């Protein structure tokens, strides 16, 4: 086994090493039940990162996801009583639409996705603030349980959240590896000009990638809203940076065409292990952010595959 052949597995190795390290320092970390519970909690974050993967995979970025999720928590809470389970459709459509507009502004108006999605996020935030009347809203408990109670049960000890995450991951993976759309995404990410010269409708593919990102952000927002049984314009704050970090640490660099949704799974797990380890190892609260940053540098340095990066910008 040479270093070259090991490269694709670096994120997994990093994850394994981290888990073992924390487990060695505090064996109770490895208790399966608590691991499952910790992992189940990050499902909304994971789903958001999953969507973000598509945007980063084509070499862009989506900074609107957090605000999309904020908007969706409000939409879900406000309209749950009226539409029941179908509120999910509205939420997903809203996420899709915002993502599609971001994509349109990026591809057709040549506004870099960094700025386009940031600006679209502001617009979503305005929507959330307006719709919520600038208040924290809570869901009607009965309506919530009737429509979305299934999201948070357990079957045979497996939390349904994990099942949902698994299904979405499988779906995203299938989309990425087995469909014409996924192949086109890869082509756009790795060589946009060649994709154009092959007659691919590159604009549409890019717009769809951002729309997917918005859609997954909406699903993440919906789950979070149901989990917290409420919504407001700030509820999902804190998701954005972590979602980006999860994608990057997993080994999907911003250069595009490399990595993918499985990497994001690993990346999210790495982020969660680091974060949970802080609590387990009783790291001083004021030190946590600094240590998080340092470990992040180490983790990224270990996980990214530099062989496809000609120039490191």
């Amino acid at each position, binding site marked *: 086994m040479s270093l070259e052949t090991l490269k694709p597995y670096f994120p997994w190795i990093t994850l394994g090493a981290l888990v073992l390290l924390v487990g060695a320092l505090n064996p109770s970390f490895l208790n399966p039940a608590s691991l499952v519970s910790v992992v189940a909690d990050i499902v909304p974050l994971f789903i958001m990162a999953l969507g973000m993967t598509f945007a980063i995979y084509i070499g862009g970025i989506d900074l609107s996801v957090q605000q999309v999720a904020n908007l969706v928590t409000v939409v879900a809470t406000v309209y749950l009583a009226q539409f029941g389970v179908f509120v999910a459709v509205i939420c997903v459509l809203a996420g899709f639409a915002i993502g599609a507009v971001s994509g349109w502004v990026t591809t057709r108006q040549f506004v870099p996705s960094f700025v386009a999605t940031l600006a679209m996020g502001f617009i979503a935030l305005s929507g959330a603030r307006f719709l919520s009347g*600038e208040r924290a809203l809570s869901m009607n*408990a009965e309506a919530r349980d009737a429509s979305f109670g299934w999201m948070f049960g357990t079957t045979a000890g497996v939390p349904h959240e994990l099942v949902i995450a698994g299904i979405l991951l499988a779906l995203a993976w299938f989309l990425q590896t087995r469909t014409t759309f996924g192949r086109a995404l890869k082509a756009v990410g790795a060589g946009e000009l060649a994709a154009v010269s092959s007659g691919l409708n590159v604009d549409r593919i890019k717009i769809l990638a951002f729309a997917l990102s918005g859609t997954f952000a909406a699903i993440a927002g919906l789950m979070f809203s149901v989990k917290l049984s409420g919504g407001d314009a700030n509820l999902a704050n804190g998701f954005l940076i972590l979602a980006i970090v999860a994608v990057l640490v997993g080994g999907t660099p911003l250069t595009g065409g490399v990595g993918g949704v499985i990497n994001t799974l690993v990346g999210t797990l790495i982020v969660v292990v680091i974060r949970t380890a802080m609590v387990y190892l009783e790291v001083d609260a*004021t030190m946590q952010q600094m240590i998080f940053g340092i470990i992040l540098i180490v983790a990224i340095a270990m996980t990214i595959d530099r062989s496809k990066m000609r120039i490191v910008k």
Partner: protein
Amino acid sequence: MSTFIKDFIEREKINRRNFLFASAYGLGGAAALGALGPSMARAALTDPTIAWSYRNRTNPYWNEIVSGGEAFVESLGMSRDALTHLINEGSSEKSLADVKAILAKTDGNLALAIDTNDAPNARPVVEAVAASGAYVSTLWNKTDDLHPWDFGDNYVSHMSWSDEGPAEQTARILLEAMGGKGGVVHLGGIASNNPAIERLQGLKNALKDYPDVELLAAEPADWDTQKANQVMSAFLTRYGDEITGVHCANDTIAYGVLEALRAEGIEDMPIVSYDGNPQAVQLVADKKILATVFTNPHWGGGITASLAYHAAIGHFKPSEEPKEHREFYGPTILVQPDDALEFKANYLDSVPTYDWTDFWGPSNGPIVYK
């Protein structure tokens, strides 16, 4: 007023009687004793981990809260480091994840004091704590349909502050100082936060009695000094001399407003704020701010942790306590220039030693839902 403060301190220290803020708002009728929730299998814990989960360390308010938590831990004969800090950085997601992590780590042997960052987040936190047999007391944020008595003993208590009344009180001081005429602007907190809504409502209530004062504008400044500074600058452009008074939703906002005025060379603008941070109290003493409202976050932080801890070790059984002992308002005290220095000396410069088992002495009556 100074004797008032002295009394207040005395009572908070030793008196078990409820102390009520001396005005006529906010206190509803006594809540009836509700049906008690199912009690949990685990009766009491031995030597539980004590944890405080809060938003961040960059706000003096939360530092005060934490200092109370630490003082409580020290009162148990432990070092202040024994208190576990969980900082959510304004993210509900992290708040919940941290709670889950520490529950897993301690295997439920935990007494948790928490502000859940956002009201909706309180329910999953409480459910998670109850499910693992730990004990939790909440501060500030929870939704109206979530009640400690629905969770047996594990959800020990919730403390909040009724801000509408005190904010109205400061507003009246402000409006008097303005001579009952002119224009006032309000710089609020994060718009969806409950205290931000209540503090603005307090101003609006007071304005009803001052028909000659116009509320020129109310903008959110997100509890943020820099944002407040910018919003105030823009207000000065828009309204100029029409502004004769400023109502701030908290002290950190007031700092930004003061600096914006200072940049314009305006020194004598009447301003009131909220929270009673040491710096703000000093500004009140210097008559830069007319009044602020002290909510005693030190006590709030300590007593919230204490409630969770003592319930956890079985010192008292929450389900046997009346509802007003499980949802109650924290104390508020108005600070004005003539008593500010004395208040500061007694209250902030040397923090009083509290009896952390006097759970409800300084509290301010049961929480009332509208």
